[in-house]
C-alpha cells in the first residue's frame, strides 16, 4: 500500500503524462467528464460521477475502420482505428471500472474485437473508491463494492482526506507504481486505520441508500413471464425514444456500422447506436421491433436477463446515470421494481 499526498497530485499527473496519455475528470461548463489532461485544466475528482460514462475511452462514439479512395482508377484501401498509445485513467469510480470488465465479455470474446483489445491492453485504470455515494447509486444491488475497487481495476485508490491511498491490483498497476516511485510515499499504521474507517463509513452510507437491495432474481429467473409482462406497455408509455439512457450508460455497447461516401473516397466506421431508435438493427423489412414498447423492453431484458444468461453477469453496474439523465424520469430501477411485483 502506497499513498500520494494531495499537494503532490499535480506532480503525479505531470509525471504520469510524461509517460502516458492521462485521462482525468475535467470540469468544463459545469459538466465533469473524463478527458485528456493538460497542465492548467480544471480537475474535479470530488464529483462522484462524471456526466458521461468513461466507456468512450475504450469504445469511442465513432471509430473509423477503413478508408478508401480511388487513385488512377484503382481502389486503394487503408486500415485505420485502434490505439497504440499507452494511457492512464485516474479517478474512475468502481462501478465504471466494473463496466469495463462487462464490456470485455462482449468485445474480447471470439472473434476478438482488435481495436477494443488494443485500447483495453494499453490502458491502466486507477479506480477511486466512492467516499460519498449518492441517492441515485445502486451498485451494491449488482454486487459492486464502492468501498473496494476490484473489477476492471489496475490500481485501487482511496481518498482519505490528506492523501490518496494507492494499491496496485495488477501487473500493469505495479509497473506504473514503479515509475512513480519518487512521488508515492509509504504508508504507516495511521493510514491503514484511516482506510478501514473510510471503508466502514462508505458501507454505512451505502446501507442508508434507498436502492441497495433491489430484487433481481425474480426477473432473471422468469424470462418468458417477464417478456410477456403487461408492465412494459405501461412503463414505456412515457418513453420518448431518445438515446440518453443508452449513451450515458457505461455498459450499453450496441453499435452500427456505416459508410461515408464522397465522390471518390470514403470511410467505413462504427458508431454508437441505441436500441431506443427507430432505425436500430434495421433490415430490409424495417426494424424488427416496431413499437417503442418493444424497444423499451429489449433494453431492460437485455440488461437483466439475456446478458446474464449469455455472460453470467448483469449488464448494469448501478451507476445511476440513466436515473439522473432520463428526461421523463423513467429508468432501470423503476423497471426492476415494477417487474419484481412492487
Amino acid at each position, binding site marked *: 500500500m502506497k499513498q500520494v499526498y494531495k499537494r503532490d497530485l499535480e506532480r503525479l499527473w505531470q509525471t504520469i503524462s510524461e509517460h502516458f496519455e492521462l485521462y482525468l475528470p475535467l470540469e468544463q461548463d459545469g459538466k465533469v467528464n473524463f478527458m485528456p489532461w493538460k497542465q492548467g485544466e480544471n480537475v474535479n475528482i470530488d464529483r462522484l460521477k462524471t456526466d458521461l460514462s468513461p466507456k468512450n475511452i475504450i469504445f469511442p462514439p465513432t471509430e473509423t475502420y477503413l478508408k478508401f*479512395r480511388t487513385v488512377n482508377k484503382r481502389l486503394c484501401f487503408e486500415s485505420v482505428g485502434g490505439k497504440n498509445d499507452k494511457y492512464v485513467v485516474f479517478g474512475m469510480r468502481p462501478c465504471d471500472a466494473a463496466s469495463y470488465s462487462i464490456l470485455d465479455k462482449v468485445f474480447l470474446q471470439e472473434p476478438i474485437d482488435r481495436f477494443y483489445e488494443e485500447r483495453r491492453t494499453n490502458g491502466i485504470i486507477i479506480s477511486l473508491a466512492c467516499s460519498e455515494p449518492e441517492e441515485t447509486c445502486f451498485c451494491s444491488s449488482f454486487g459492486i463494492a464502492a468501498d473496494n475497487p476490484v473489477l476492471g481495476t489496475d490500481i485501487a485508490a482511496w481518498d482519505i482526506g490528506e492523501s490518496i491511498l494507492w494499491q496496485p491490483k495488477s501487473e500493469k498497476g505495479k509497473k506504473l507504481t514503479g515509475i512513480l516511485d519518487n512521488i508515492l510515499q509509504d504508508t504507516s499504521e495511521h493510514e491503514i486505520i484511516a482506510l478501514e474507517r473510510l471503508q466502514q463509513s462508505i458501507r454505512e452510507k451505502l446501507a442508508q441508500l434507498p436502492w441497495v437491495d433491489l430484487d433481481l432474481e425474480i426477473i432473471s429467473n422468469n424470462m418468458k413471464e417477464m417478456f410477456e409482462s403487461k408492465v412494459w406497455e405501461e412503463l414505456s408509455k412515457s418513453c420518448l425514444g431518445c438515446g440518453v439512457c443508452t449513451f450515458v450508460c457505461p455498459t450499453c455497447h450496441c453499435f452500427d456500422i456505416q459508410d*461515408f461516401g*464522397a*465522390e*471518390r*473516397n*470514403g*470511410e467505413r466506421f462504427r458508431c454508437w447506436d441505441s436500441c431506443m431508435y427507430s432505425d436500430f438493427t434495421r433490415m430490409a423489412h424495417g426494424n424488427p421491433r416496431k413499437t417503442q414498447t418493444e424497444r423499451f423492453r429489449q433494453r431492460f431484458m437485455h440488461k437483466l436477463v439475456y446478458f446474464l444468461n449469455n455472460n453470467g453477469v448483469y449488464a448494469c453496474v448501478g451507476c445511476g446515470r440513466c436515473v439522473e439523465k432520463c428526461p421523463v424520469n423513467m429508468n432501470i430501477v423503476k423497471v426492476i421494481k415494477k417487474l419484481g411485483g412492487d
Partner: protein
Amino acid sequence: MSLKLEEKAISSKQQFEPLIVAFCCNWCSYAGADLAGTSRLNYPANIKIIKVPCSCRVSPNFVLRAFQRGADGVIIAGCHPGDCHYSTGNYFTRRRFTLFANLLEYVGIEREKFKIEWISAAEGNKFATVMNEMLDSINKLGPSRKLRDGRWIRQQ
C-alpha cells in the same frame, strides 16, 4: 503579416479554386443563366448550377449539405418577389432564408458565403454580374473548411 506568411497566403489563394453552388429557379434565374449564356456574357466556371422548380423548394438542408460536400459558397437565385411562377413561392423563400442567413451568421458563417439573389429571365446581365461578384468575395475570404465534412476530399 510577415512577408513569408503573405507569400504563403497568396500562393494558397492562387491554388484556391472555389466551388459555388447556385440553386436556380426554373422559371426566372435558370432562364437568366441561359440568357447570360446565349448573350455570351462571361460568368465563372466555378458556379455549379442546380435547377429547382422554385426558390422555395430549396431546403436549408440542401445549403448545409452543399457546404459539407465542398461548396465554398452557396447562392439561391429566384424570381423577383411578386413575379413567382407559382405566385407566392419566393415570398416564403424570402422569409425563410432571411432567418436562415441570420442563423448561419450567428453560428459564425460569413455573410458572403451564403446569398440570395432575385434574377429574372431577362436579367442575363445581372446573373453574370452576381456570379462574378460572388466569386470575388469568396476569393477574398480565401479557403475555409467551415461546415465542411472532415472526411470529404476534394477531387482534382
